[in-house]
């Protein structure tokens, strides 16, 4: 397998322009002769499907939800970054580029990140034109805030519902194309297999989640915008349905999987209450602008927080990182919370929590100001925990949130399978080893609105409209048969344990052994435990009902089956990457004061895994990362 990044020649800031000048175009009259499949209807999928339909292509779009509007992008709270420099505080495309590369701990491709920063400004224009109600100043102009460790105000937001508003903008553009007949929408459809004809992506096999029908859909190009795989940890901030199935099936068909171990643990989530817990709720990172994080200095201190005097509190982020304090990046803040709890300083019933305290801000700014900024978040917190955060500090704990790893793509966003494009969180992305706050929305929309419509067109210009198989093709029949056999196999086990049981157990292994901190021993342990549990899954799973009906247990079981396989690859990748970088913290690789220690001499590369077949160890390929425009520095937030 050869990993050719296909980055255009020339200086960094001219690469994307050069690409657009040089790329091949499809004749407008011919565009309707091409069909494109888009799987997923989140920010990347909806925006790509709408934009490509506007260009004239025929688009088939798929989502597992009952409506494309419910894709999990909708839950993003904080905001979206763009290098508009509306606040005259020195922001620029280069600065956004630099912050993103640095924030990702120098494990992303320079050219891709620069393109992302360039188109960030177009995204805001596009969304405003669609009627996205961004927050505004009294003068009628757009408001910005600083977010997630950035030292400029470049984050645009719509209250605490930025993801919702951006997604609805894309969804409405998509619905417009559906109304015009240019997009055919397939809701409640689960992608189960990728169809390759002579090594080229030509379609997908889906399961109709209402009737259970297995169907093939064919196209000239396939785009996956199916999000991340954080639910491999069972508990995460993702929606219950988020899954790895689409990208995993593509991996098993030959698409390289890059940096699977790069996962982001978000520092500010509501702590776990018990085994019944099904998901974790994120509290926007913006809370760290005014909240102070602390734990008691004395282990096992059970006094109510307000009874603990000031000098018996450890504001550990402010102590360890005086210049960034409570605004230290996500990976650093999460690890510091874990460390505090590991040392017995955790708070709450489970001891897995730290305080996020607003008392000082309320004293300084007044109750009203805090309510205006965070009212909806405080309400949500109170609804879930039954505690009033205006009076007693919030309790927070880190939770799995985002995955920087994903299918490997070149500059065109094309995977190692020709004709298979991957966008948004599903690709291995521009975020390197750690994503900055408010950058996920930016990347999803950049890929969907402004990158894929060009690069997919460039690919299609080299494909004849007649290069389109029929459903009678042997490869299509074989793919359908695989899907049916797999479903039958799952249903036939008739064991004793539910899909949720296995999912929860897998999550515990991953959280403990491949979570916020990893070491060789823990990863090897996980690589023993996972196959054992997977064997039990395939011999003792219990799914009620049949395949030809609406069967949520079957849907879940199929996803868990894929998570098992992915979990192993994540551990393998984490084991081989013998350095700490961003969200990947290898305990063997730290500085004397406990900070992540990169090893640029040996690991300044993307690791992309190639599937070798059932039971065989996948092959690890390397794409070296070359930094010509930024200096490889040690990330310091002290």
């Amino acid at each position, binding site marked *: 397998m050869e990993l050719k990044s296909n980055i255009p020649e020339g200086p960094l800031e001219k690469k994307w322009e050069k690409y657009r000048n040089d790329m091949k175009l499809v004749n407008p009259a011919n565009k309707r002769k091409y069909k494109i499949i888009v799987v997923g209807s989140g920010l990347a999928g909806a*925006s790509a499907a*709408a*934009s490509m339909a506007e260009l004239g292509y025929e688009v088939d779009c798929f989502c597992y*939800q*009952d*409506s*494309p*509007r*419910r894709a*999990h992008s*909708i*839950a993003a709270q904080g905001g979206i970054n763009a290098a508009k420099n*509306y606040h005259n505080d020195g922001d620029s495309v280069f600065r956004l580029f630099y912050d993103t590369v640095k924030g990702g701990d120098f494990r992303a491709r320079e050219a891709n990140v620069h393109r992302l920063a360039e188109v960030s400004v*177009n995204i805001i*224009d*596009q969304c*405003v*034109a*669609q*009627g996205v*109600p*961004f*927050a*505004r100043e*009294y*003068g*009628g102009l*757009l408001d910005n805030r600083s977010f997630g460790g950035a030292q400029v105000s470049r984050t645009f937001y*719509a*209250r605490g*519902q930025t993801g*919702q*508003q951006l997604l609805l903008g894309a969804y*409405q*553009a998509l*619905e*417009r194309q*559906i*109304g015009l007949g240019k997009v055919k*929408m397939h*809701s409640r459809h689960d992608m189960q297999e990728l169809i390759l004809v002579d090594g080229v992506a030509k379609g997908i096999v889906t399961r109709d989640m*209402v009737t259970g029908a297995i169907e093939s859909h064919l196209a000239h190009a396939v785009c996956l915008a199916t999000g991340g795989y954080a639910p491999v940890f069972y508990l995460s901030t993702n*929606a*219950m349905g988020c899954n790895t199935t689409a990208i995993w099936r593509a991996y098993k068909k030959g698409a390289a999987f890059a940096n699977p171990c790069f996962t982001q643990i978000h520092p500010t989530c509501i702590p776990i209450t*018990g085994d*019944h817990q*099904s998901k974790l*709720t*994120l509290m926007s990172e913006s809370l760290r602008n005014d909240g102070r994080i602390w734990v008691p200095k004395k282990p096992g201190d059970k006094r109510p927080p307000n009874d603990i005097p000031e000098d018996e509190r450890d504001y550990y982020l402010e102590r360890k990182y005086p210049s960034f304090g409570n605004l230290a990046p996500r990976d650093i803040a999460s690890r510091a919370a874990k460390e505090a709890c590991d040392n017995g300083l955790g708070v709450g019933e489970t001891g897995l929590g730290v305080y996020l305290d607003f008392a000082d801000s309320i004293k300084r700014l007044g109750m009203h100001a805090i309510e205006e900024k965070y009212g909806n978040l405080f309400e*949500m917190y109170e*609804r*879930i925990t039954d505690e009033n955060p205006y009076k007693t500090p919030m309790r927070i704990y880190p939770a799995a949130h985002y995955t920087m790893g994903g299918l490997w793509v070149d500059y065109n966003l094309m995977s190692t399978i020709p004709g298979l494009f991957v966008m948004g969180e599903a690709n291995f992305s521009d975020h390197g080893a750690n994503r900055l706050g408010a950058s996920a929305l930016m990347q999803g929309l950049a890929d969907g609105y*402004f990158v894929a*419509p060009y690069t997919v067109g460039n690919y299609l210009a080299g494909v004849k409209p007649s290069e389109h198989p029929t459903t009678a093709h042997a490869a299509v029949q074989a793919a359908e048969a695989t899907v049916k056999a797999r479903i039958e196999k799952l249903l036939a086990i008739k064991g004793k344990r*539910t899909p*949720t049981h296995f999912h929860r157990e897998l999550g515990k292994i991953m959280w403990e052994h491949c979570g916020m901190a990893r070491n060789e021993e823990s990863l090897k342990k996980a690589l023993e435990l996972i196959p054992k549990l997977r064997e039990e899954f395939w011999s003792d799973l219990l799914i*009620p009902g049949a395949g030809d*009906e*609406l069967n*949520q247990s079957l849907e879940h079981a199929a996803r868990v089956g894929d998570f098992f396989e992915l979990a192993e690859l994540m551990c393998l990748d984490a084991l081989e990457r013998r350095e700490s970088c961003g969200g990947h913290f290898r305990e063997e690789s730290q500085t004397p004061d406990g900070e992540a220690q990169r090893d640029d001499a040996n690991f300044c590369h993307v690791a992309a895994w190639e599937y070798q077949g059932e039971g065989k160890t996948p092959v690890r390929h390397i794409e070296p990362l070359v930094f010509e425009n930024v200096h490889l520095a040690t990330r310091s937030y002290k």
Partner: protein
Amino acid sequence: MSSEKNLNLKLNVWRQKNAQSEGGFETYEAPGISTEMSFLEMLDVVNEDLITKGADPIAFDHDCREGICGACSMVIDGRPHGPKERTTACQLHMRSFNDGDTIAIEPWRAAAFPVQRDLIVDRAAFDRIIAAGGFISAPTGSAQDANSLPVSKQNADLAMDAAACIGCGACVAACPNASAMLFVSAKVSQLALLPQGQPERYIRVRDMVAQMDAEEFGTCTNHGECEAACPKGISVENIARMNRDYLKASLTYRPEATGGGAG
């Protein structure tokens, strides 16, 4: 509000195999439910038990479980999303119930939302209403600089209030006429309040209302149940705003002229 840590409950749940079959209520015991659980986590626990016993679990729509995706949709004790104001079923916690309670759980009831299984209904009618006109036509790449069009903070805030709709359909489920006026008016209002929405303002309201009627939602007779049931507190003021625009659209409607092509 319960002060107990664990509750023993009885559930009366609507069970229906598929759209064609007839449904009915079944009763289940739910013992030892922690007050820390969300309502959906309580159903998870009941379902795990059902599966282990070899029975079909209760099918229900859910996804984000943080009150924003709009997937969860069930009538709890006669109220869409249950007893707590401005709270979706997924954000409702069991501490809102008492030990020994019997809880009735049903799907949304509306002709335009046919049941697919148990508590799951088909809400594609909402998507078709948006496809009929719930957008601003702004093809990718055609936009001008975002700050070239100032929007008063007041209008931006009102537009945001309307845009907060999560499309769950509780308004329809709560309405004695199963009207979709709150849902439709929220989108009409949001876009009519913004300068970007002006060129299509009247054609939008006309097309969306026509689609709403075609989907067989009922008419609005000002009960206000929709606002009371809405987990996002969308105001019926939006309906008034839509009615004004609809009236104006009806009075000023002219069929489009069909012109010849250029050149």
